[in-house]
């Protein structure tokens, strides 16, 4: 079991939708287009996707550590 915490920063988020494209099981967008987490989404079950979503965020609004 991973102890890594998934963090998002809505203030920095520009709503590119990148994370939703790379890891749709974990990331979503709210009505304003900003990052939201899929309820019950398990980052460990999609670890490779989540790592790419975090690395690909254009404004570093995501972290998983």
């Amino acid at each position, binding site marked *: 079991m991973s102890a890594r915490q998934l963090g998002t920063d809505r203030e920095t988020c*520009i*709503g*590119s*939708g*990148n994370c*939703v*494209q*790379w890891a749709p099981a974990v990331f*979503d*967008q709210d*009505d*304003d*287009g900003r990052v939201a987490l899929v309820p019950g989404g398990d980052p460990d079950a999609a670890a*490779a996707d989540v790592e*790419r979503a975090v*690395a*690909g965020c*254009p*404004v*570093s609004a995501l972290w998983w550590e």
Partner: protein
Amino acid sequence: MTSTGTAAHPEPLSLARGEVKLDPPTHFGRWRSEAPLRRITLWNGETAWVALSYEAVRAVFKDSARFRSEPATPGFPTINQADSASKGAALLPMLDPPAHTALREAVLREFIVKRIESLRPEAARIVAGLLDAMASAAGPADPVDLITALAAPVPATFTCLLLGVPLADAAFFAECLDVRFTPTSATEAVYGADDRLRRYFRDLVTARAAHPRDDLSSRLVTGSVLTGKLSAEDAAALLHVLLIGGFDTTKQMIALSTVTLLGHRPQLAELMAAPALWRGAVQELLRYISVAQVERRACVADTEVCGQLIRAGEGVLVLLGSANRDPDVFGDPDRFDIHRRDLPHVAFGHGIHQCLGQPVARMLLSVTLPALFARFPRLSLAVPVEELRFRDDRSLIGVSELPVRTRP
């Protein structure tokens, strides 16, 4: 002549491609292996930097405070005459915060992934109609131009649908954008084309303010202009850039994706057998093709990037296609591989200016390509790939025609 970045008269920047037309210019790879950034000479004799490595490209894009997008910034580089002539247009990609932030915010909701994905049936209907026309127009052995038949009308039709303008206006858009992006277009012609589009969108804003409909343009007007958040001029410029952003880029992605997949038939067969693979395949097509080759920035404060000092007042051309073939990030980078699990590509840019319409591009590609190959399983190029005429003198690469046969 030395080949280092500090030469007094650095090499001119050429965008000309080598024998493998889908690969970025071969000298980009050589340059990148020497240094992540280097100085080059521009078309007008000025010098600028090119950012070549994945790390350097991301670093410049990310630091939007020091690397500015406004063409009026001292040292801002241009890649040809038409590019230079359009410096005055205050469009979204050419703005810095806070103006950029307010404009992007005004249409952000329109490009939420789920919202764009909900338009998939509309896109599928557009594509099916075009494929029907292709099937009935062509005799078994007649070549068809895939650009005219499919690659151009898919994004053109979808963009008109999204903006809520008559489909018949697509020809006018195409004509203006062609003048605007032809490298040798005279300054007055570029001004003229920009001006016609500006007037078109100003009229559209006025019309939607008077009679709102259920479309993006109307929502922008009622949500931002009538509430005083944006001027009518800003709204018109925003609609203008949404047109530019999606028109030629997606057209060339559909065309060059077709070329790429026909050149990798075992992977195409895999995709047709397992449609879930298309999502990764579209990402790999975006990386491999990288239609947008060059972005421009001007440095406003001395900054070190990957160990290289860039001074205030110096221009940087960001080479996205080079970053997307960086061997330090992408294993065997020149190989097309739909199963790739490397870091994300930078085909849509990076930082605050990253492509706003990327969900549209991905959706249109993932609708169009499977439908094309399902309808014409024996689709082939009507000319050898080496004979395709590549427009490699523009920041947006592509072919002006793509003759294919729907049956052998």
